[in-house]
């Protein structure tokens, strides 16, 4: 009996030890955002003033609500573009045969291998050419483009798993290709769309590099840029404020993740047949 209990307890003990630093970090983040000051990990006093950014603008910064709206718009539009385009291209790559299909597939994966940091200069010139530098739309297009290769592959995997018989039946019954895709196939891969949407939204919400480099106007800031600006050169960091904004930044994602993680796991079960 005792041995069985010990055996059961060991994994929990191990997991507790491994996750302790993360739990302590989040715990400190939470406590520090309500503390007058902290010394090491220990908070002193209680205050709501670290959350003052919710009801008054921070000096020399745009309103938090404007920034949050930017971040939300950024994440949502990236999600819509990524899922919409990936669903169409994934279907084409899975079902249609056209010259260069294999090459296109390989190329798509190679594109994903480029981290966005290596493309910054080229992206800058393209945005400048299109007069999209320092616009949210420009950065959204860049982010969606960089995310598309992986999204396309994932969607292709889901389309591969849909039976040909269903599609054939729809086509024989007189459906057009588009109608078959929209009314027959898409409903079958709903979990995949949900999973990719969540994945794309989280990626858009947490994006830092692209908005930081390509958005110069205060009014275009996103939350990740705000956090960087609050840190500045570490000269005058108000850690209470920083932790409160950090917590504000992760709260929506945390809830989103808690309620949707089931769908997120579908990405790894969707399969990617070639």
């Amino acid at each position: 009996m005792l041995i069985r209990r010990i055996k059961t307890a060991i994994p929990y003990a191990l997991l507790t030890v491994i996750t302790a630093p993360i739990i302590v970090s989040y715990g400190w983040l939470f406590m520090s955002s309500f503390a007058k000051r902290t010394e090491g990990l220990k908070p002193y006093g209680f205050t709501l003033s670290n959350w003052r950014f919710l009801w008054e603008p921070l000096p020399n910064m745009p309103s938090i609500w404007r920034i949050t709206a930017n971040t939300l718009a950024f994440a949502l539009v990236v999600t819509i573009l990524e899922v919409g385009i990936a669903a169409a291209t994934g279907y084409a790559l899975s079902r249609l045969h056209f010259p260069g299909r294999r090459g296109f597939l390989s190329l798509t994966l190679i594109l994903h291998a480029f981290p966005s940091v290596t493309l910054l200069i080229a992206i800058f010139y393209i945005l400048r050419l299109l007069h999209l530098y320092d616009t949210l739309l420009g950065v959204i297009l860049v982010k969606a483009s960089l995310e598309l290769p992986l999204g396309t592959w994932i969607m292709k995997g889901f389309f591969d798993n849909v039976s040909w018989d269903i599609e054939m039946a729809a086509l024989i019954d007189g459906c057009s290709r588009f109608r078959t895709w929209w009314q027959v196939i898409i409903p079958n891969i709903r979990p995949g769309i949900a999973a990719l949407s969540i994945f794309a939204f989280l990626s858009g919400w947490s994006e830092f590099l692209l908005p930081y480099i390509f958005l110069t106007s205060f009014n275009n800031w996103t939350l990740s840029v705000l956090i960087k600006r609050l840190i500045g050169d570490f000269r005058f960091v108000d850690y209470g404020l920083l932790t409160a904004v950090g917590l504000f930044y992760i709260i929506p994602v945390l809830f989103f993740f808690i309620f949707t993680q089931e769908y997120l796991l579908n990405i790894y079960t969707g399969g990617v047949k070639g």
Partner: protein
Amino acid sequence: MNKRMLFIITIVILGMLAISCAPAATPTPTPVPATPTPAPPKVKEVTIVAWTIGPDEPSYYRRDNLIDAADRLNKKLEKEGSPYRVKVEATFDTGTWGDYKQKYMMAAQAGNAPDIILSGHEDVAPWSEAGFIVALDDYIAKYPDVYNDIIPALWDSVTFKGKKWGIPQDTEARPMYFSKTLLKKLGWSDDDINALPDKIKKGEFTLYDMLELAKEAQDKGVVEKGYGYWHRPKKGGDFYHIYFAFGGQMQDPDTGKLVVVKDAQKKWLQFHYDTVWTYETTPKDFIGTDWKIWHETVSAGDKALFWNGGTWHWAEWTQKYLDGNEQHLWDNVGFALIPSGIKGKPGTTLSHPLVYMVSSEKATGKKNQELAFRLITEATSPDLNTRHAVNSGHLAILKSQIDYPDYAANKFLHDVAYMVEYTHFQPNHPDYGTYDQIMFSALQAVEAKDMTVDDAVKTVIEEMQAELGDKVEIK
């Protein structure tokens, strides 16, 4: 989720898209107001975009002075019968210099730069060469009453290839601060302490005298080990006043070329090696320390014995670290020039004037240059500059400010005013960034003991010659 709900969500998302994705409003190209025209039919508002930076928070008047200057300019425009009125969209950045400058350069490349940019005078050379900013000589000539009032030496900092590319916004000095409290603990009398700035000015107390004294204080337990002398914790111009103190030169005034004086450079590196490794008065791995730790330590007034900073730090410490208690600094902290490295030579300091520059049409896509300049002209007034100087610990740029009541009444500004006579500037040269990086990398390597002083000197010379060729003179 039913279809109606889906439809509503889609509409909401598209609405947010339309609001958020719209490009930032940029005013259309506006012609420069020509000669005043009588009774203009309709007033046209021109938006002047200005970027300013602290990064120290007390320097926010760099932005606010431009905003307030708009009222003055608009009154003048109205009086002149001009159809134009200006609206200012000014921002004040408290981030890092590197980020700020990088953003300006990218925006200028994209034709999206602000009409007015405030930055260090050393940006005059690279930005004018790149065509980002315009020469201001013709404009300056139109307002002699304002610009004859600028302290003459400051014009040197904005002059490049014979033209003036900026208007000085403020200047400062970089004193050697010292803890009066700790010197007293070491047995110094008030008279000894009060005499120190003068001894430094006359060259009777050198940099190595300072290290000896700091070591003595550490050995006697008055100062904690590694707290004898603190330089700035990050890359920056301040390091070069030590180079000047050993007889260094950064630019040849005749040829305009960058200069490395080998002997001074070696002594400069040796000094930094010695403070870390020989005297142990500066901590190991000090470069990279958080600014916050640095400020908290030095502003306490009884932890570090000597440290070099800027005059603006006085205001920062008062406002950000001491809850407005300036008296704490007067009680505990003294200031002097940077001691010379050579006995008998006067102390030195470094000034880094910040300047307003006007972006070119190429950089902004707009023709607002004259209006932008006129806005700067209105901001260049004794009252506005004085409120900035007093609030942020910066020195006057106008002769008339010296006697301006608020300025004259500020004891700190009064006491450091003499330092400007002993100042140096960083070079106005398009390749100064490369020069600076090579010098600083060597200093970092020496302090980390990754390189000997001799090797570092050799490396600097080789790299300078390889990267800058005949743009640099080795003396």
